[in-house]
């Protein structure tokens, strides 16, 4: 099912939680609503599910205007952050409960619940109570309960935040598998960029109630619309060097170095931020380099090393192959690739 949002706004008294959102979620896709806490992503999810009323704007499921439709008529399955499994019911009863509400005959609903349990791999645990399950298993049961009434839209609120690191990896792949197997249009909320990048077809990045950018994970990473998007995605975070434009060069703010920029939009004397992905900075030679840096320290990250360098009074992190051996204070010649290097306006953060 396709979900369309048209100028959607949510206000809590004077606070605007979601501001003038217009976008579209395509049928059968897994979409991540990503953003720092308080950005309005959960508010957005609750408006889609119908738990929260909309202040302004419209929501369409395919052709149906569901803006003022109560949650139960929208055909959405909802998975809560802490799962909200009924503690007094067994796994089977929990999964079957939405059908029990619909007064489906007991035999039929148990059959369907067992089918769902098989899909999410909890068919061995049907007689257990929620407290006898691990976090990951509870999550699976919650997903099965959300899916049993064949919803048109599956909504997951921070589905992985209550799990430990290992389970998180496992469950995010499980969510992807279940979503692909059922083909249900899915929207999930997360504040973890890695989570969003790894499993979603599309990421919707929000900040302070405003849409920042929406695109595929790789596109978003490679082509950020503004400094916030560039900073939010990627680990280690992108390097920011501040400076200004002079004679077609980017000059560091303390005048300790400059780089030629081929960007017609950059205006003379404009205050800018140069964003450089850690993997886009390579080691050059004395003859062929963009910037000189001073080696500070390094951390081992397993397959590679992360080096901290100083450029003037600013700092930059780059990946370093273990072939290089630098001492603190050594001069490092940096050569930047064209990919993964962006110029942003310092004031507005907009990509130039």
């Amino acid at each position, binding site marked *: 099912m396709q979900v369309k949002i048209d100028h959607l706004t949510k206000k809590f008294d004077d606070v605007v939680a979601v501001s003038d959102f217009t976008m579209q979620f395509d049928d059968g896709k897994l979409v991540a609503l990503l953003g720092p806490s308080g950005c309005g992503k959960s508010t957005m999810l609750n408006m889609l599910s119908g*738990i929260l009323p909309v202040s302004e704007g419209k929501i369409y499921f395919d052709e149906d205007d569901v803006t003022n439709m109560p*949650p139960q008529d929208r055909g959405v399955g909802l998975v*809560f952050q802490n799962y909200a499994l*009924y503690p*007094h019911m067994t796994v089977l009863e929990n999964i079957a*409960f939405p059908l029990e*509400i619909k007064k489906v005959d007991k035999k039929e609903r148990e059959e369907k619940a067992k089918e769902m349990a098989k899909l999410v791999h909890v068919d061995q645990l049907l007689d257990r109570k929620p407290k006898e399950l691990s976090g990951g298993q509870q999550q699976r049961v919650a997903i099965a309960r959300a899916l049993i009434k064949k919803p048109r839209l599956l909504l997951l609120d921070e589905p992985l935040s209550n799990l430990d690191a290992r389970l998180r990896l496992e469950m995010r792949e499980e969510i992807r598998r279940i979503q692909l197997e059922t083909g249900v249009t899915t929207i999930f909320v997360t504040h973890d960029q890695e989570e969003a990048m790894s499993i979603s077809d599309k990421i919707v990045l929000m900040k302070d109630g405003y849409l920042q950018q929406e695109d595929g994970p790789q596109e978003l990473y490679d082509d950020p619309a503004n400094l916030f998007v560039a900073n939010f995605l990627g680990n280690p975070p992108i390097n920011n060097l501040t400076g200004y434009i002079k004679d077609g060069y980017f000059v560091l703010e303390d005048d300790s170095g400059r780089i030629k920029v081929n960007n017609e939009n950059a205006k003379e004397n404009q205050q800018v931020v140069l964003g450089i992905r850690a993997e886009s900075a390579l080691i050059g030679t004395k003859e062929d380099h963009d910037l000189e840096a001073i080696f500070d320290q390094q951390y081992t990250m397993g397959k590679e090393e992360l080096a901290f360098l100083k450029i003037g009074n600013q700092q930059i992190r780059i990946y370093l192959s273990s072939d290089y051996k630098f001492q603190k204070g050594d001069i490092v010649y940096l050569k930047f690739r064209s990919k993964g290097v962006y110029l942003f306006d310092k004031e507005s953060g907009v990509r130039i």
Partner: protein
Amino acid sequence: MEEKKKKKRREDSGYIFNRKYEPLIYLLPFAIGLLIFTIYPIINVVIMSFKNGYRLSGSYNGIGIENYTYVLTNKYFLSAIKNTFIYVFTVVPIATILSILIANLLNQKIKGISFFHTAYFLPMVTSAIAVGISWRYMFNKKFGVINWLLGLIGIGPIDFLGATAGVAPYNMLTVIIFGIWNMMPFTIILLLSGLQNIDPMYYTAAKVDGASSSTIFRRITVPLLAPTIFLTVVVNMISAFKVYNDVIPFWAGKAGALGTNLYTMVYWIKETFYSKLRLGQAAAASIVLFIIILFFTMIQKYIQKKTDY
């Protein structure tokens, strides 16, 4: 060297003494109080129940189970047991069910809810005897407001407090109504706090799935409230078995309009002890009451364990 070792050993043993006995010293003040005021009287009642004697003089004569055979064949004590059971098994269920419904209503977000909170909790801070006396007027056959209200819908008048031709069919009803009224505030407070401990997430989850409020109440609220309901049932049942206060206000301290028709177990024990000074029989009756309460409490504990989640 040898001297040092010895000294160390002495210090060690002092340390162990402290670890072992120090806590006991801290517990002692409370333990002594408990022994004197709780354990000793219980043991004394048990001993007393096997002794034959009338006075507090200590000059008992004979030891045996005569007290038990007496109370268990005494017509009035048997009717007291019957009355107590009727009271317990009507008042506790009705008060519990009404309290669940009212607590659920009080848990809603309604304007002016705090007024209702206060109104429902008021009986808790009033004296049962004092309020009972005003209830006595409300129950009056000729002038009582209850009969007036019943008259409006064409019932009555009912002689709640009186007796005709040696029978008083409505005396028990009076005590039961008063008992329910008395029991509800405390029950509502406990249930309300139980309701407030239920994560609203469960309601949201059920609502998204389209559950009606009656389904939510039946399938989610009540099961999640079950531990609290059991607690109130246990506490209320224990106190209901000891019913005494609820009988006193209506017949100027007598047990019903006929003076004997509304004996409860505690009422009979009190009368036997204070008025008749038959200490052994009163003690034996107390033990019978104790065993009955213990029995029902055990049953409830067993059920509670089975419903624990």
